[in-house]
């Protein structure tokens, strides 16, 4: 199951005209969230951008979105690591449990201020993580990864 998903992600990367249906910003820092939202809008994103303050809320959102989105839809998630209640790693674990129930596609990036190489390696190893983007988001990094 996971292998198939990885291939899909890989294909998505080469899909230039992909449709971003929605973006989730999962971060407890409201200041950063505002910045990121601003930058994304400046980059030309029209899809709805939702901020969630911890992993638990993010998981709940996914379940809610499952009723709204279809298999054509692609959800971009920008995930911070350090969050209360359920942090980035916890979110990934829970995602693994519900992934098969989700109808839509997911593109997940870890967005973190940590430049600890261990974290970076661990992040990149995760099946659901496409890549690791250092905070803060910049227009360059948005162009490189998200668009």
């Amino acid at each position: 199951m996971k292998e198939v998903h990885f291939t899909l992600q890989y294909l998505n990367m080469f899909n230039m005209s992909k449709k971003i249906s929605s973006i989730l910003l999962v971060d407890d820092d409201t200041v950063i969230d505002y910045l990121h939202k601003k930058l994304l809008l400046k980059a030309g994103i029209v899809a709805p951008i939702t901020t969630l303050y911890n992993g638990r809320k993010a998981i709940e959102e996914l379940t809610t979105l499952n009723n709204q989105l279809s298999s054509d839809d692609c959800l971009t998630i920008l995930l911070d690591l350090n969050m209360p209640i359920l942090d980035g790693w916890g979110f990934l674990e829970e995602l693994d449990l519900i992934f098969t129930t989700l109808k839509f596609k997911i593109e997940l990036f870890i967005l973190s201020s940590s430049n600890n190489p261990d974290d970076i390696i661990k992040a990149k190893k995760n099946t659901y993580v496409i890549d690791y983007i250092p905070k803060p988001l910049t227009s360059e990094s948005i162009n490189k990864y998200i668009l």
Partner: protein
Amino acid sequence: MKLINNSTMLDVFELVSTIPLPVIVIDKRFNVIHFNPLGADFLKISSYDVDTLDLFSLFPQLSADDFQLKTSFELKNVSFSGINYNVNFNYEPCGLNEDFRLIYVTKYAVVQQKLGMSEFKLNYLKKKVNIYDAFLNNLKEGVMVFNEYGNLIYSNRNSKSHFAGKLGGNSLFWELFDHCNSQSQWEDLKSRVDVKREEHFLQKIQIDKNECIFSLEISHKVIDQLKYYLLIYIDISDSIKDKMEISKRDSELELFHKNNLVSNLEFIFKSDKTSYFSHLSDSFEEIFHVNIDLNNPNWLKTVRFHPEDFKTLISRLTVVETNISDFNFIGRLIVNHQFVWFEINSKIEIFGTDLVLKGIIKNITDIKNKEDDLKNKTVFNDLVLDNIPADIALFDKDHNYLFVNTNGVKEAALRDWLIGKNDFDYCALKGMDTTLAQIRRDYFTMAIETKQQVNWIDKIEKEGNINYMYRRFFPFFIDGFFQYMIGYGIDVTELKNAQNKLDEQNSTLLEKNKELERFAYVASHDLQEPLSSIIGYSKLFKDEYFPTLDDEGKLYINFIAKSVERMKMLISALMEYSRIDKKELPLQVDLNNLLHEVNEDLSDIIQRHESQITCDLLPSIICFPSFIRSLFQNLISNAIKFTAPGISPMIFISSEEREMDWLFKIRDNGVGIDPRNFEEIFLIFKRLHNSQDYPGNGIGLAHCKKIVSIHNGNIWVESTLNEGSTFHFTISKYV
């Protein structure tokens, strides 16, 4: 059968020569015609005498008439050539020739001469013989006579008793004596004796369980043309025994003297307290290397006697009132400025007013020296044992004390009491709990069974304090047999306490370190977050509002952005610094490969500055690869960075293997470092230059220092301003 009557004489002669008996051929008139070779032998006549011989001249006691009566004759005392024979013969007609008769001698034997003498002469002779007999039989010597054939024909009484049982009817010389073993040796002996007149030899004889030695002399005598051999011997056993005893005593004495360096002495001590030596053996000078004048009251002038010892001797002699059988004295002579110890074993006899001391004097210097050495050694050993700050005890196989030193048990009485007893007895005496004693017993048993030493630490609570004793049992075996057990005990309380303290401090340190690291990590991590915000917003601000700002405003926002960037870099560096630690196991790394990678990573700045990096063949070492990589990277980039503008950096990297570590040198031709700064540069954030001149955050060398320290090494610099610097660092072989 009737033979031919007319056989010739020759035929007859031929016939009789074949007969194996003496045969005489006679005619009818009893003239001797012929005899065969055996007959000639018997009669001791050669054939030339035959013409004038008749039978009756040979056998005078016969007459012709006798031959009418019988044919078989036994004659006594027939004499031929002065020897008497008893002869048996047969008389027969000769079958070949009726004129001849044959005499066959069937038997003949020599008869002893019978001397015809008067009865008076006979009695006289008998008396004489009896006297001689008595004489011979009372001799202490043994007398034996042998004939030329070796037969014993006479032995006197003594010899009869000496050889009791051995003298048979016809004893032969070589059966009785070892001097000859056979008849042929007897013949040799005879010929020797015939020439030499007599021969002496010795013979050992076993008589009544005693071994006796005889000295024998054999000589030959000829009586009436007959050879006799006279053997006279005496028993020399006693004298031999004495001789042997004497020689034994002599050799014993010689040996004694040789080994004991003894001289006989006789010393006279007079009532007026003067004295002199009346006798000293010749060996005295050899033994003592000094000569004492005999019979000289001023003998003290010739040899120095230790004054104290002399005084003692005089005082002892002065109180002698009766004979003493056992007087011993030990003193010193002074010879050639050295003490010579002597011992006198003697007896004292009183003659009037004089004391006579007779005995032996020996040189006991060697013994004394050995004793002194031993005493010194013992004193030394005791001193050592009693002053060692450790308990030392010796045990037998049953764990009973054979010895314990002062440190082990302070009271001498208790020490003495302890000999032969064990720890349990001690506990019983002191009313102590036997737990420790049992523990010791168990270790004791283990040491004996494993035949190896056992060590352990006793924890003893005494008066509220805890003491630690390091104890050892060492079993001592010789050739696999247990001799004794050596027990050691050393108070290691201080040591243990120090160690405990150290352990405590260490774990505290470790904890603090961990805390610090966590602190550094968390701090820098948490600082990153707001930092990211500032960076983000200042960028955004710049993007959106830059044109609206005046020059001042533009300047401010630029400064903000720069500061924030710098802060990010610092925090990044700090985080990296805190992460330098031994997390995983070190690996074997080929430094040549590693350096190659570093140069590739730095290829950009290497090329930009047209730098030249020369490097020796580097070893393959055990280390933490990522950190070592960082190390080289830092040092090389520093070398390139801190070069005067316009100059191509030239960097030399070398390595050297040392006993305990590897030494690396990185030499550059850069701007150099002031010696005052040699230590400071390794401090975190310490910079020697302004950012305008040389950029950097000042953390590189602090990194290097930390990396080197987790490899148990050191880093230092040698440098001359404007010429260049050489950075040295060591990586331990035992990381």
